[in-house]
Structures are given as C-alpha cells and as structure tokens.
C-alpha cells in the first residue's frame, strides 16, 4: 500500500503538468506523453554522456523541458487559443506524432534503463525500494516549489490571474501571451521531470509515454481539471487504491478499477473530486 502511495505521487506530478496547461489556457496537451518520454531519455542521455548521478540530471531536464514547453506553445498552441478545443487537440496530437516518429527513428523501440541503486527501507517482510522513496521525496519538493511559485511570486500570481480571467488580466497590464507561454513551459517541465523520475524507477521505450499520459488523464479528471494540488492528491490516492486492491484481486484488474472510477467521476463529479481550480483561487 505504501509503495503504491510513493509511485502514485510521481503519477500525480506528471498529471500536474497537464492540469496546469488546461487550467490556464483550456488546452488539452496531447504531447504530454511524448514530453514524459523526453524526460526519460534526457536523464538517460545525460547520465550516459557525463556520468552524472541520475538525480543530478533532474535540474537540466527541468530547465530543458521548460524551454521545450515555450517552443511548443509558439509552434502548436498560440494560434489555437480561443479556437474550438478540437483544434488544439489536433495541433498537439500532431506534434506528438512527430516527436514519437523522430524518437522511434533514432532509438527504435528497444528497452532502456537508467541504473540507480539506493538502499531500500525494510518494514517486516516488505522492502520499499530506495528509488521509490527518493522519487516521492523529490516529487514533494517539486510540488512544493510549484506551490511557492504560484502563490508567492508575482509571475505565479499572474499565471493565476490569467487562468481566472484572461481579459481582466490584460486590462490590468499583465502580458497574457507571455504568461501563457510561461505556463506551457511549466507544464511541459513538470512532464519532463516526472518522466526523468519514472526512468529511475522503471525501464522505458520511446512508446512508453502513452501509458503514463493515460494515467495522467485519469489522475487529472479525479483531481479536477485545472487543479494542480488536486492532481497531486489524486495521484497519491490512485496509488493508494492500487496498493489496497492488489492483495485481493489479480493485478491486471487494477486498470479496470481505475477506469471505472474515471467514468464514475466524469459522470457524477465532472469538475473532479477536488474541483477547486486555479481560477477560483485567483479571486
């Protein structure tokens, strides 16, 4: 159960990226999976090329992800702001296909692994891998940093203002286009760094992003679209659910339970279980 919570925190971090972009600009970013994979390969390549510890590669991956997100905004999203949602879906989906195609051409679909070894924590018969504990701790640090940015800095307040009411934010002199680009950069940075953390836990291929993107959507819906804190809590809750369910049923059934929950929440709580959005908080 505890192990599920640890890994669920990382899923929550991945979902925070999607929900932040949605909350600020009403865009569902379908490059999310590709950006998670980019983070995975980022840490793999940095460790291979420089010999640096895997956790040392998180900062450069975060920074590179931020700038990649800004580039993504200008390439695929800027002109779709204000357009029907399908347009931004198609635009980000196209970029996703390009990225996956390029990745497959360069690396194929073989499995990659980032070797990380940390002592685990044994409680009775069970051992919690050190990598899972470290991933959860770093998730908490990154989530904390994001919270401080959004609620304690001018730029963060501007992000929340734009999320709340873009026209009003423009009227008071906030450069909304720059804030949208910044938000996209943050969202993609979160996706990349969550991918980097996942790479320290599990092996991956160029095609691994789809499964994590799907999980991110489930977590985002559970936590409320546009609610980064909700996404983190929902990720932990999902991990807890997986941990509680698996002793009593085949492991393959946990996906069924997750998606049943997904559908129930979509129908009964369309705003999510924790539907306090950035927009409301901005008031």
């Amino acid at each position, binding site marked *: 159960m505890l192990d599920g919570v640890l*890994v669920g925190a990382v899923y929550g971090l991945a979902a925070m990226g999607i929900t932040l972009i949605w909350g600020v600009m009403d865009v569902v970013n379908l490059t999310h999976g590709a950006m998670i994979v980019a983070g995975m390969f980022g840490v793999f390549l940095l460790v291979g090329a420089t010999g640096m510890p895997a956790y040392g590669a998180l900062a450069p991956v975060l920074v590179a992800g931020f700038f990649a997100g800004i580039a993504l905004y200008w390439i695929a999203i800027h002109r779709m702001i204000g357009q029907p949602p399908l347009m931004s879906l198609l635009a980000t989906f196209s970029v996703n296909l390009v990225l996956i195609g390029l990745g497959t051409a360069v690396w194929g*679909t073989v499995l990659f692994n980032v070797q990380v070894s940390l002592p*685990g924590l044994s409680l009775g018969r*069970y051992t919690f*891998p050190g990598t899972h504990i470290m991933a959860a701790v770093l998730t908490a640090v990154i989530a904390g940093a994001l919270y401080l940015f959004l609620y304690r800095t001018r730029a963060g307040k501007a992000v929340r203002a734009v999320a709340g009411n873009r026209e009003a934010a423009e009227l008071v002199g906030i450069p909304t286009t720059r804030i949208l680009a910044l938000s996209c950069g943050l969202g993609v940075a979160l996706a990349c760094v969550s991918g980097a953390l996942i790479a320290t836990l599990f092996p991956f291929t160029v095609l691994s992003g789809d499964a994590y993107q799907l999980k991110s959507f489930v977590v985002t819906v559970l936590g409320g679209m546009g609610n980064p804190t909700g996404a983190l809590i929902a990720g932990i809750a999902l991990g807890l659910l997986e941990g509680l369910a698996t002793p009593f049923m085949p*492991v393959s059934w946990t996906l069924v339970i997750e998606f049943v929950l997904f559908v129930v929440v979509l129908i009964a709580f369309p705003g999510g279980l924790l539907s306090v959005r950035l927009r409301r908080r901005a008031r």
Partner: protein
Amino acid sequence: MRNVWLPAVCASVVFASLASPGPARAEDTITIGMTVSQTGPLNVDSVAQLRGSEFWRDEVNAAGGIKAGDKRYKVRFVTYDDQSVGGRVQQLYTRLIVQDKANFLFGPYSSGLTATAAVISEQYGKIMLIGGGAEPKTYQLGNKYLFQCITTADYYLSGSIQALKARNPHAKVAFVYSDDPFSKAVVAAAAKQAQEAGFTIALQESYAPSTTDFSPIINKIISSGADAFLGGGHYPDGATLARQLYDQKANLKFVSILVAPDSPKFASLGPAALGVTVPSQWEPEVKFNPDFGPTPEEFAKKAYAATKVEPDYHTASGYITGLLLQHAIEQAGSIDPEKVKAALDKTDVTTFFGHDKFSTDPKSHGMQVGHAMVLAQWQMKSGKLEREMVWPDAAKTAALNYPLH
C-alpha cells in the same frame, strides 16, 4: 561528317554485355524468407535468433552452398521487420511468399507471431521451420508444412521443477507470468507438473506483457509465503522482474525466469542476476555427439568469432533451423517442397543442439518430439557472472546454488 556515334554506342553495348557476368541464374539460389523483430519488445531475442540463422547462411555459402543432388544452391535471405506485431507478420509473410517468391520460410520469434505466420504459410503450402515458437497449440491444428525445431512450451519448466523437487520436495511456488500465449502455455503445464511433484501453489497470476511496475505483484508473492518463483515471459519483463525481485528483497530460495536470463545481456543486472535460473534450449556446455554439423564447442567458438556475441539458445535455435533444412534438402537431393517435406518428416538426428525429431501424427504434425531442455543458473565464477548448467545432473557443469536466501 559521317555519323560515327551510333555504331560506337552499339559496339560498346555489345562489348559490355560480353564482359559482364550476366544476371545470376535463379536456380543457383534458394530464397529463405522470414520476419525479424528488429523493433518492439521482442527485439533482443529475435535478433539473437537472426544472428544464428545468418551465421548458418554465411557458413553454408562459404562452403559452396547446399548440395541438392548434383547441384549446389547458395542461400539468400529476405527479411522484414515485423515490429513485434502480429498484424505486420501476416502482411509480410504473404509478401515473402507471393512477391519475394521465397522457396522456404523461417518463422518469426515468439509463439504469438509464429501462430500468425503459420496461418499464412499453411495457406500457401510453404515449408516453415520454427526456431522461436514453443506454444504447442500451433502444431495441433493439422498443419502439414510447419516444423518446430525446439522443445515445446509444456516442458520449459519441467527441469526447474525437478531440480527444485530434489532440494525441497514441499516447496511453496509462486507462478507469475506474462499474459502471452507462450508464457501461459508454459505455466499451464508447469502448474500441473508442480502439483504432481507435491508442491503447494501459493500464487498463480499473470501480468500484462507491457508491465514495468512489478512492486504490487512482488508484494503479493511475499505475502503468499512462497519460497520459489517460476515464471516471467520474454526479455523486457523478465529482466525487469529479476531486478525488482532483488530490489524488493523478495528473498526467494529459488528463482526460475523464462527466456530473459539466457541472454548475455542479463549479466548487466549485476547482483540481481545472481542465482537466477533459466530453462534453456541449449547451452555451450552441452555434450552431444552430432551426426553432422559442428559439435557444441565448435558451434560456440565459431558463432562467437562470427557474431562477436556469446551465443545463447536463441542464436543456437536460429542456426539449427538452417542446419535441419539443409540436412533435409541434402537427404531429399532436391529443393522440391514435397521431397524436402518428406525428408523433414523422416528427420531423427542428433546435432550440437541435441536430438531433433518431428511428429508425423496428423494431429500434431511437425511438433518437436525429440529435443529436451536443460537448466542454467547465473553463478559467480572467478569473480565474474557466468551461466552454468545445473540440470540434468548427468550433464551439469556446476551444482545448483540453493537456497539463494
């Protein structure tokens, strides 16, 4: 000025055609078609199998080709990447037969892809030899042209069970396996054998082949009180499972994982590889006296020299598909498919790979009924991780390391 260009061009063409060797005669070459999982999750084992087949092809061509009667045929491969996907296998084997005019086929790697390819090869009546498809069901469908060169899945874990029984007749076993045709067939048979051996089955559960997080299922193994683990699938999930069993200190006394630990790559897991056993179609230390072809030692040395990779059983099975086809053609004295098929039906030989014999019962035609598995274990030898043969007792190179914890 007289026009000298036209006669000059014509003369050039005549001289060029006299000088050129002319097009290769089709009858000098046998085309063997196959797909290879160059990409996708089956990549590691499939490419190892291809290495073996290519090594055989290069050897036979260097010797002048396959002798069929008074003719010699060079071997030419036509291969495509099936991306580890069944849908691609269907398209590509049709292409190999219809467009590329393959004389014979080698199967793809894995039981799932083999079952798909077999539908096409049987439809067109093309002989196909299989080096990487162990699920028995494929060979129980009334096929006529399919020939399985390796032991069927039913017997994969027999050696593990017998080796474990000799040390712990009351073992509590966890069967955890990939939800794919091969692994399911292996465990279905092994579970019966385990019960007959007097073991308690503490857990029997499958996982999706794409699984990377095994921590929930490992916690279930620990909770079940199992002291032995048997299962896995193919390379990616098998290697990941081995690593996570080690990281989570599952502390099992006996671990037997399908396929993955037979790859030389498995040693990169370091301490997580130590003590893991693998049922194997072939190991370099086997002691067979071949009726023809290389001895096990010769094969191991030459394969390494040719491919620069330590040969595992997938490489050996890739080679044996070629060697058995070659033997059948030589016995038939012809590349006529019906004559070659008749020769394959009569095959009852021992090679570096072991005993090979195909069933001629119409209900299981082509199923392998001669070959037997061995069991290998990763052990430290002179400070280095190496695979040792630990079963059967008559052929082992080291004692089974038991218990692991």
